[in-house]
């Protein structure tokens, strides 16, 4: 599923230990801490590799996440809002990541702008419960999706660079 570069990036993200979802009041705060630790490490790694490409933050109880991701294409930076809820069945099931502003622009999306992850992502996630967390979701779910879809959307004129658009 993933190329060597992705594999290397992912192997550097620390794995999580606590198997707990948002309904587990006792253990969820611990899981949430681990999520933040892994995300912080992943962002720091991306920065060090000059490949910083997303930010995320959650509400206080960690059930709703939002942020931005960006994608550089032909030296121009395209930025998109990202959002998702943590499902009650997390981490047995991965959250459904949405990029709402692209809703209706690509067939590889479900209603509400939820990105369509490949057939391979579900088995990959299932095999790594509970060790994979949100950082892995970003690296193995959202990143490959953006890499395929955004250049295509730009070439079709469905995504236009903001400055170019206003200028």
């Amino acid at each position, binding site marked *: 599923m993933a190329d060597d570069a992705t594999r290397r990036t992912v*192997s550097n993200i*620390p*794995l*999580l*230990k606590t198997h707990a979802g*948002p*309904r587990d009041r006792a253990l969820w*705060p611990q899981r*949430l*801490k*681990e999520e*933040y*630790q*892994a*995300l*912080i490490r992943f*962002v*720091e790694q991306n*920065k060090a590799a000059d490949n910083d490409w997303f*930010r*995320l*933050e*959650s509400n206080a109880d960690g*059930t709703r996440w939002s942020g931005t991701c960006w994608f550089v294409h032909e030296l121009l930076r395209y930025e998109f809002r990202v959002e998702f*809820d*943590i*499902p*009650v*069945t997390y981490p*047995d*099931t*991965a959250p*459904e990541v949405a990029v709402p502003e692209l809703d209706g622009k690509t*067939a*590889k*999306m*479900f*209603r509400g702008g939820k990105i*369509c992850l*490949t*057939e391979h992502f*579900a*088995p990959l996630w*299932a*095999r790594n*419960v509970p*060790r994979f967390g949100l950082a892995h979701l970003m690296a193995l779910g959202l990143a490959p999706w953006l890499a395929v879809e955004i250049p295509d959307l730009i070439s079709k004129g469905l995504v236009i660079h903001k400055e170019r658009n206003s200028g």
Partner: protein
Amino acid sequence: MATVEELKLRVRELENELIKCKQKQNAMEDAHNQALNRPKIDKMSAEVVDSNPYSRLMALKRMGIVEDYEKIRTFSVAVVGVGGVGSVTAEMLTRCGIGKLMLFDYDKVELANMNRLFFQPHQAGLSKVEAAEHTLRNINPDVAFETHNYNITTLENFTHFMDRISRGGLEDGMPVDLVLSCVDNFEARMAINTACNELGQIWMESGVSENAVSGHIQLIVPGETACFACAPPLVVAANIDEKTLKREGVCAASLPTTMGVVAGLLVQNVLKYLLRFGTVSYYLGYNAMQDFFPAMTMKANPQCNDRHCRRQQEEYKKKEATQPKVEVVQEEEEVVHEDNEWGIQLVSEVSDSELQAATGARPDLPEGITVAYTIPAQDAAAGDTVEETEQSLEDLMAQMRKL
């Protein structure tokens, strides 16, 4: 030339006129509907006359298929997901005269849904549950409806969902008789599974594959039969070479035929289960490419990830133990060689456990049914894990924000 103010005023005038027109039209439609709709029927009649909507259903009694058809009015069923399968399922149950239908869906009707049955183009933009209730009430006003327009997988909605299926039966405070899963994604199925395991609620799963040429239905009795988390998702093999299957640029295909067939199989099983006739299927697959219908029963997995599934299994075992068992024991004769002077034994070169570690256990399934993927045994030393930290959650959140 008119000033901006004048134009604004004119817009407001026109808006008001439009509202008046709409109100008039609605009043006319309501009056029209009132005239068209039949009054509620108190008791199902078996009388064969043109005006009796239940005559052909009550005939099932006379033919000896169903013992007590009127009993259908005492049942309540929750349908989760009112899409291609769920809407048709709800319509069939409505026409059969079910007592109460509870509908859950967070989606809106779209023109892209028009390749499926039930919804009509003029309903585009309405919430699916609202549009469905309107149509279904017209078809059969005897059915009680309760609709919820939300996503059941989020924390708050899930709590409400659990509350409704456990207390929203025909008699207030009683659970529904059956929950039907007609959703189109893994997350929602797992959420229904979690709720039903916790509540001990019997439910039926249904699904159509993303390539639209296979489907399945499954009856899940918590603790007794395999729950949705007991094994990786089951797939009805469509015998299509993965290499020739093109996935470029699309997420999912759908056909009204496959969805109609699966809805039909599902409701047939519901009727057989509720009204006690025929044999109820535990798992029935539909392979549309070869017209093949594999069937099986799968026991609950004692190592299931869902602790409530394991709890239900314990309870089921206790219940079973109290019931007297009549079982025919077939003795198998052991092959014993007269003498084995040298103590020779057959030993496989690769142990079963080694084989399983590489690919993951594959449940024993009949021909035509397989699992979507296997899960290899946990490999403890797979990589670095997060370190113990002294930092509080707030510290970490602040640190993330500062990056």
